[in-house]
């Protein structure tokens, strides 16, 4: 319709420059229009006849508009636009040859996407575009390959990497006059989209990408696991919380079963009710990480009846279950029952090491769990390297000024710089009653501290889960959330509680305490602080959960083990290795990153860092990791995992003749990525086309591509001038103005 009215496609107007071809300056047009308007006004005033009121003005407006239109055309308006020189430019045609193109949902379900694409190539692109330009045909999946004819397309590629493919195609044609790119794809990109860098590179070269999209945007009946989020590493026997995002079409309000498996062993299941069509839905699954090693967990949703694509019902994730035994330092200022029961709870956890110091008398600190007799012999650490050897700190009933100002600052830095977890428990000599408000420690607490004494009460109080607490792994005593909430309601009362203030911005309250006759107060609050995390658990009376419940009940142990695991879970070592994609889906390139710190956890910019990689079938390699510019202490490296399977990379940093290390696991999986996001990603194709100056076409519209492709500023171009005076819209507008006047005069009876 646009082209019918305006003679040219819209891209001509959006890309071209508007010009007036008459030899007269533009102001003369304005003068002529004003003069004509004045003359018509004078004329209307003299010959108004029976016209009264505003009617002469209306007629004058229509007449003036018509005269202005004619004058405008006399000044010869036109569009100046760059067009590709025929036969001198190359058009790169990239055809998606991945497996998703074999989906039979093209042309109303009668053809595969690829068949439909080949049809478009043969009847509109290669033939018609080829008449004016040289066409280079490529197929792409994981990589780009030039082909001679459409018959070479097989839809067998393991993945679609649109961004990488565009870059490769442009690189190959960098010395040629590339005028435009035509992309035929379903947009099902497996690399997580097209990065801004690629788009910027295309824009810089001013090469328009015209995209033709194939396939249905969504299946009629399908459930897909969209994403599974799991930590990259954890401790042995840890509980893991898999956050599973799924989408469905055609099964709204139906029940589906989610499962986590390791091999054939089912670790956890959950029945969920599916939400509305197309809407992302996030569910959680709790399971035990098991023993040490690189473990692959598969999260799946059972196929539903009539489901069109069941290959996208499962996703795998790799978790490195580490053999390290993090050490927690627990300092208490006085003997308390809580101390003994926390120790007992953590003793049950083989993956946690607990070192304790308890002030028995004014002059005697009793140590337990130390590795060597000298450890902590001189009291609470005064040096960073000594304190930072632990992964988490727990403070019981100890007043702030027991620690020197330097020690208080060290504790703050333990969370802030070292990235450790720090837990403050309630007690008669801590928090508000321990002078914390006026110490550097106040800043790191997740709650405000009341400016008063007498905040600690030896009165029985109950613990209640907050809505956030229901989702927290710390408070998860049962797999199912509703059962967990019930269990917390039946929890025995605690022996005491401590008043604390409101949570600080960014902190979350997982448990509240409620004593008869008093308002609810935060009991367990957590927050991220610097690189680490801090928590306040405002009681020293949770030991009642152990003594008041049957021997078989493991509530107390579970709570404390999960609490301390939270405290140490993300505490990095001196070398912290990571990779953005622990699972390489149909790709080989693995990027490794490492942060290297010294004993005081200050960045080390001059270490020698290498990754020692071992993989399937005896694969081994040493990859040198180089400093990342402008990021002190950060090193990066890249390696190609040629074989599918699990790999372990041990990143070793050599600094001052001392080696420190960290290990990460990653896995290459082939033939999986193409099963996901198989619906046409029209949004991605449209955005790509729009941001590069091209256009998105449906297969039916693709026949117009040949006419529009020549408008490009890339390649070898010539400026073309397109007259506008003969656009049909001009004729219709003139007719409308004249007939409008006639209709009004008829209506008013003054014809």
């Amino acid at each position, binding site marked *: 319709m646009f082209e019918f009215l305006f003679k040219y496609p819209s891209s001509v107007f959006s890309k071209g420059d508007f010009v007036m071809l008459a030899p007269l300056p533009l102001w003369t047009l304005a003068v002529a229009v004003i003069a004509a308007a004045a003359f018509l006004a004078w004329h209307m005033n003299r010959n108004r006849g029976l016209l009264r009121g505003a009617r002469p003005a209306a007629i004058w407006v229509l007449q003036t508009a018509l005269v202005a239109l004619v004058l405008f055309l006399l000044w010869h308006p036109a569009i100046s636009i760059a067009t590709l020189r025929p036969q001198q430019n190359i058009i790169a045609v990239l055809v998606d040859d991945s497996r998703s193109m074999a989906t039979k949902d093209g042309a109303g379900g009668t053809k595969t996407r690829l068949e439909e694409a080949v049809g478009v190539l043969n009847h509109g692109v290669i033939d018609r575009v080829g008449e004016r330009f040289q066409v280079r045909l490529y197929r792409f999946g994981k990589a780009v390959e030039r082909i001679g004819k459409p018959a070479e397309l097989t839809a067998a590629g393991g993945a679609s990497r649109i961004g990488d493919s565009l870059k490769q195609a442009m690189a190959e044609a960098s010395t040629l006059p590339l005028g435009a790119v035509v992309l035929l794809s379903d947009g099902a990109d497996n690399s997580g989209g097209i990065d801004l860098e690629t788009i910027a590179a295309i824009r810089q070269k001013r090469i328009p990408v015209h995209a033709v999209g194939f396939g249905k945007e969504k299946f009629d009946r399908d459930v897909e696991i969209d994403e599974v989020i799991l930590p990259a590493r954890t401790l042995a026997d840890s509980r893991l919380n898999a956050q599973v995002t799924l989408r469905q079409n055609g099964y709204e309000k139906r029940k589906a079963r989610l499962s986590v498996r390791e091999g054939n062993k089912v670790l956890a299941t959950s029945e969920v009710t599916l939400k509305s069509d197309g809407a992302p839905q996030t569910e959680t699954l709790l399971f035990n990480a098991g023993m040490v090693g690189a473990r692959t967990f598969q999260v799946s949703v059972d196929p539903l009846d009539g489901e069109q694509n069941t290959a996208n019902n499962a996703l795998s994730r790799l978790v490195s279950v580490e053999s390290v035994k993090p050490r927690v330092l627990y300092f208490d200022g006085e*003997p308390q*029952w809580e101390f003994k029961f926390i120790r007992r709870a953590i003793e049950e956890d083989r993956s946690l090491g607990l070192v304790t110091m308890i002030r028995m008398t004014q002059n005697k600190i009793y140590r337990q769990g130390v590795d060597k007799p000298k450890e902590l012999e001189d009291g609470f650490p005064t040096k960073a390297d000594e304190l930072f050897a632990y992964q988490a700190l727990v403070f019981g009933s100890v007043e702030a000024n027991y620690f020197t100002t330097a020690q208080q600052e060290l504790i703050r830095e333990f969370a802030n710089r070292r990235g450790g977890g720090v837990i403050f428990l309630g007690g008669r000599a801590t928090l508000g009653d321990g002078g914390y408000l006026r110490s550097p420690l106040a800043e790191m607490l997740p709650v405000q501290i009341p400016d008063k004494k007498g905040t600690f009460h030896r009165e029985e109080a109950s613990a209640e889960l907050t809505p956030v607490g229901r989702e927290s792994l710390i408070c998860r005593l049962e797999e199912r959330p509703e059962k967990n909430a019930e269990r917390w309601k039946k929890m025995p009362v605690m022996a005491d509680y401590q008043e604390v203030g409101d949570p600080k911005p960014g902190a979350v309250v997982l448990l509240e305490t409620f004593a008869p006759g008093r308002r609810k107060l935060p009991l367990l609050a957590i927050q991220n602080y610097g690189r680490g995390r801090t928590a306040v658990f405002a009681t020293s009376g949770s030991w*009642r959960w152990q003594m008041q419940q049957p021997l078989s009940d493991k509530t107390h142990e579970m709570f404390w083990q999960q609490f301390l695991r939270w405290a140490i879970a993300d505490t990095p070592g001196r070398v912290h290795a990571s990779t953005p994609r622990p699972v390489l889906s149909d790709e080989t390139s693995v990027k490794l990153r490492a942060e290297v710190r010294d004993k005081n956890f200050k960045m080390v910019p001059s270490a020698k860092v290498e990754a020692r990689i071992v993989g399937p079938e005896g694969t081994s390699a040493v990859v040198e990791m180089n400093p990342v510019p402008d990021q002190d202490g950060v090193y990066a490296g890249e390696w190609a995992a040629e074989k599918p399977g699990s790999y372990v990379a041990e990143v070793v940093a050599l600094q001052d003749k001392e080696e420190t290390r960290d290990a990460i696991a990653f896995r290459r999986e082939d033939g999986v990525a193409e099963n996901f996001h198989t619906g046409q990603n029209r949004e991605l194709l449209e955005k790509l086309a729009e941001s590069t100056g091209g256009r998105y076409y449906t297969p039916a519209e693709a026949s117009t591509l040949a006419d529009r492709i020549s408008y490009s500023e890339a390649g070898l171009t010539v400026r073309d001038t397109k007259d506008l005076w003969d656009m049909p819209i001009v004729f219709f507008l003139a007719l409308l103005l004249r007939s409008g006047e006639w209709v009004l005069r008829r209506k008013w009876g003054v014809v």
Partner: protein
Amino acid sequence: MRHKTFIAAGLALFVITASFAQRGRRSYVDEEDNPAVMPADAGEKTEYAFARLRYPSGGRRSYWGGGSWAIDYPKADRQFVQGVRRLTRLHTRSVEQVVDIDGEEIYNWPWLYAVEVGNWSLNDAQAKKLRDYLLRGGFLMTDDFHGTYEWDSFMASMSRVFPDRQVVEIDSKDPIFHLLYDLDNRVQVPGIVTFGSGVTYERDGIVPHWRGIYDDKGRVVVAICFNQDNGDAWEWADHPRYPENMASQAYRVGINYIVYSMTH
């Protein structure tokens, strides 16, 4: 006559005062073995209280008419906790807590003291409860029983508490003897019955034993002071003729047992 009236009024006032101070705690005034002054801060809520186990004792009664659980009660308890308060940072109540083995209150007091256990006679339910208490995290110190007969009597009940656990001598290297005070060189702490005789043992209990029952993690859960009477040492520590070294040892053993139970 006037004199007797005055004494009766005094006694009545004492009972009323004691009862008032015992608010929140069940009163066992009638069963007291050796009454003591009720401290002004008796109502203070603390982390620790000396919890005396009230158990059935098969007819054996103390001087004041209570069961054998009440021997030395409450004077020994109140004198001992004065030492605990002075010598440690433990927030300690100035008066004891009597805990009946038949109630659920036992689970609120993770440290228990049982005296004259050579006379105790636990039924199956009580034995089961005590076992449950100890395995959940409780600690029991037994004291003041002597000789073969009382040992057998003690074990008759204790073997029902822990049919599958052995009573062993606690090694002097065990942390329980070093945690706060080093107690390598221990002596027999005598009861008041042998006072002045120069003999430190009762019946055929000539050799003192510090025995224990350990849990699966190697922690002492029952500390058995056999052929010795720490309770009397606490009770008579204020007596000028009670040997100072023995009273001191009794305090140190008791304190070590308490802080051990709060750290293990």
